């Protein structure tokens, strides 16, 4: 019989929660910024996160000026982490992050253990919105999958979820899976999208649907699922401007599989435990320009902060979070540190839904930072404007802005020169 059940406590400067694209970039950058004590915790048996199942290409165009597959993109970061001998623990699930930055985790190897950290980088990624959240009526048989689950089955396990497929939601994974399932021998009848526009990237609509003759039904949704044991059919109806199904427009599609690609939700359960304030729009943390959350020493990056379209930008953002965490640890040691008092909120308006970061410190910010944001509808020929107080410091014309494509702009410290304490930074769309 085991006599003791003691709980080991480790100490590290920076704990990175998640070893996917965000966590790896953050850890590498923290190390490069001079932090020697970085630990990455990953729940899966390998590093790389969801990239491992994304065997299609299109990754790395911005970061490496090359077109890589997901596993290739991940491999670049994994080898960089290896070269730097960054410590990581696999098959390790984080259970809790306390507001004093004690991280509790569990693994078969170490049991339950704790790590006292000086900084924590949240890089847990996101999950897919399941069926239940959509209230799709009908039966609950086998054959209803989120697109990502189907992707894992097809690409990692070599198993086909079905042969006759309907896809609800035109998120990027759904579009990618329409093509993948077609290539693997299934027939994809259509992709139905509730909104009057796609939630995915234009290039994916062209390369994954148009090239394979798969119809995209905008303003349509699934209103019924049939089949007691396995999906036998789904019914699709058109929706009105209030997104309500229009009676009489129902079309029944016999099929054995319904894939859902209806949205990604940042996995912030641990962040909430740590007391991190969450933005209801992004469902990710409110962060300042160093990507620090409302809890001092806790940083966030990647899809747990806000859902990205391109991994290249996840890596870029996460490198910033890692460097910021390293600086935070260094300043902690020096007894310095930035005050929260000088934070200026970035207000969004006029069609822009959110900005990451949500706060900027004019005194402490880097020479230049990136503001990332999304719009709430499709806009043509609008200006993205940035005001500091009453002063318009940026005014850029965009031909097209769509909710499915994240936007960014660069804010320079000099643009904030002379900002008054009561001033706001405002980010909005203007017609001229």
């Amino acid at each position: 019989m085991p006599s003791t059940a003691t709980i080991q406590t480790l100490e590290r400067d920076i704990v990175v929660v998640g070893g996917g694209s965000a966590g790896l970039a953050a850890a590498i950058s923290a190390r490069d910024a001079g932090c020697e004590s970085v630990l990455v915790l990953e729940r899966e048996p390998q590093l790389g996160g969801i990239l491992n199942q994304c065997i299609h290409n299109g990754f790395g165009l911005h970061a490496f000026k090359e077109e890589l597959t997901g596993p290739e993109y991940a491999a670049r970061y994994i080898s960089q982490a290896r070269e730097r001998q960054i410590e990581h623990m696999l098959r390790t699930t984080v259970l809790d992050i306390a507001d004093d930055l004690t991280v509790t985790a569990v693994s078969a190897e170490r049991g339950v253990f704790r790590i006292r950290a000086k900084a924590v980088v949240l890089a847990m990624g996101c999950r897919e919105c399941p069926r239940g959240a959509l209230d799709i009526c009908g039966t609950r048989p086998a054959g209803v999958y989120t697109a990502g689950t189907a992707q894992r089955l097809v690409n990692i396990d070599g198993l086909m979820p079905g042969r006759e497929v309907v896809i609800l939601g035109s998120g990027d994974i759904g579009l990618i899976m329409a093509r993948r399932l077609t290539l693997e021998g299934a027939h994809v009848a259509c992709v139905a999208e509730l909104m009057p526009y796609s939630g995915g990237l234009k290039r994916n609509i062209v390369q994954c649907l148009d090239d394979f003759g798969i119809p995209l039904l905008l303003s349509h949704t699934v209103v019924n699922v049939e089949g007691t044991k396995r999906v036998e059919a789904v019914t699709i109806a058109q929706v009105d401007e209030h997104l309500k199904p229009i009676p009489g427009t129902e079309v029944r599609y016999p099929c054995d599989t319904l894939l859902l690609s209806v949205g990604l939700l940042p996995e912030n359960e641990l962040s909430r435990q740590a007391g991190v304030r969450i933005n209801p729009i992004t469902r990710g943390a409110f962060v300042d320009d160093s990507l620090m959350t409302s809890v001092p020493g806790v940083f966030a990056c990647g899809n747990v902060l806000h859902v990205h379209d391109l991994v290249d930008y996840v890596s870029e953002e996460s490198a910033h979070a890692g460097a910021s965490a390293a600086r935070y640890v260094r300043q902690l040691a020096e007894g310095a540190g930035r005050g929260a008092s000088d934070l200026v909120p970035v207000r969004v308006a006029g069609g822009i839904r959110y900005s990451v970061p949500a706060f900027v410190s004019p005194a402490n910010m880097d020479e230049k930072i990136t503001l990332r944001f999304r719009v709430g509808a499709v806009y043509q020929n609008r200006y993205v404007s940035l005001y500091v107080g009453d002063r318009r410091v940026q005014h850029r014309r965009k031909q097209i802005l769509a909710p499915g494509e994240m936007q960014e702009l660069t804010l320079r410290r000099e643009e904030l020169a002379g900002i008054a304490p009561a001033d706001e930074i405002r980010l909005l769309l203007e017609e001229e």
Partner: protein
Amino acid sequence: MAETVYDALVVGAGVSGCSIAREFSRLDGRFLVLEAEDDVCSGTSKANSAIVHAGFDAQTGTLMARLNVEGTSLFPELSRELEFGFRQIGSLVVCTNEADLPALQALLERGHANGVHDLRIVGREELVRMEPNISDAAVAALWAPTAGICDPFELTDALAENAAANGVEFRFDAPVTGARRRKRDGEPALWEVTTPKGTFLSHVVVNAAGVHADELHNMVSASRISITPRRGQYELLDTTAGDHVRHTVFMLPTKMGKGVLVTPTIHGNLLVGPTAEDIPDKSGTQTTPDGLAEVRRKSALTVRDIPFRETITSFSGLRAHQPGQEFIIGEVEDAPGFVDCAGIESPGLSASPAIGRMVARIVNGILGLSPNEGFVPTRRGIPNLRDIDPEDWQRLIQEDPAYGTIVCRCCRVSEAQIRDACRRVPGARSLDGVKHRTGACMGRCQAGFCTPRIMEIISEEVASIDLAHVTKSGPGSRMVVGPDKQGLATASDEKDDSRGGERNA
């Protein structure tokens, strides 16, 4: 070779059938449970409110009232013996109209007459203290502290496992297609029960077939019974909404049942429902837009601001309603040795421990068996890691490191628990079987991440199931249809591949 003759055979492995089976296992005899589906708890028992009712609803003097009160009183002890989830959180029947106060009073009096203890009516002020989110219209409520919530899956599993450990046999995927009495020379007649899995002989047959109990009964008796599937639709919200109410909140009952309730579940979620719709189809467990809209509308009468955006799933179940609205329990007059346990709708779950005892008493009145001297009343539950003390968890990991490998992150279920579920008798053989035994897949991602890993573990643990043949809930519900590219490169031997083959020819 002599055919096996069972002393008693139970048709149906729901909570009633398994409770009966466990009571049988206290006797020295040979018992068999036949189940049409692939697992225990696959019908009415799996999709209900999971409430252990105090016992004031049923008309005084009915079997429903008596067995409810007796059953509910047995729950605390039973949950310790069998280690299933049960919590006595109490219930409130909310009155939202001064004019209905006499009805609330009548309910209190009926409760007293039924033998329910500790009932009392609480005024609005106290009610608001107990339930801060109670509707603004609420004027008073009937408080029943003996009511509780349970895990119906775990309860049914526990009863079945304990019955099996004490010698009861189970056969799954064995729907009964025929039952008749076979006369024998010089010996008492035997029941002959036919299924696709074979024909079974028994002295006594117990009909615990849920919504199908009328079909089985009517095979053997001239006095017909009728069971109407009464559908109930529910919405289940994330644990983030689990403390929206602290007790089970009912509206004043109507003739169609107890109305829509709002309750925390044993797993910390919030459950809202059910509707009550009589439908013709005994497999009609669809949810409908009207049904779910009704759930939302009616729940707002008693509880305000329910955060339905936190909904993680909706589902529906069928109650086995019979027109007399009373349990039918007893030996059928024109079918000696055939014992009905039919019409077990609410409060059937609450009554189940008492139903088991009552049926066993009736059956042993026929059989006259002596006690099973080796009966072991306890069953070890599958450990739950959700609220476990870290030191206790550490001890589990030291015994089996697989307790440290989390498979279901939303509900904190480890590899060890999933393997345990598969190794139980009767054990999990499908994703739903694992889900029901461990709570995996029940969380906010609704099995998105853990499905492939659980499929792997099932295929490793259950010798007869390879990865490509893992099902969601038994035959006909395969999770996948075969390997990638099947039918693309070569002709396939699966007939439904022909279309793919042609298209790519």
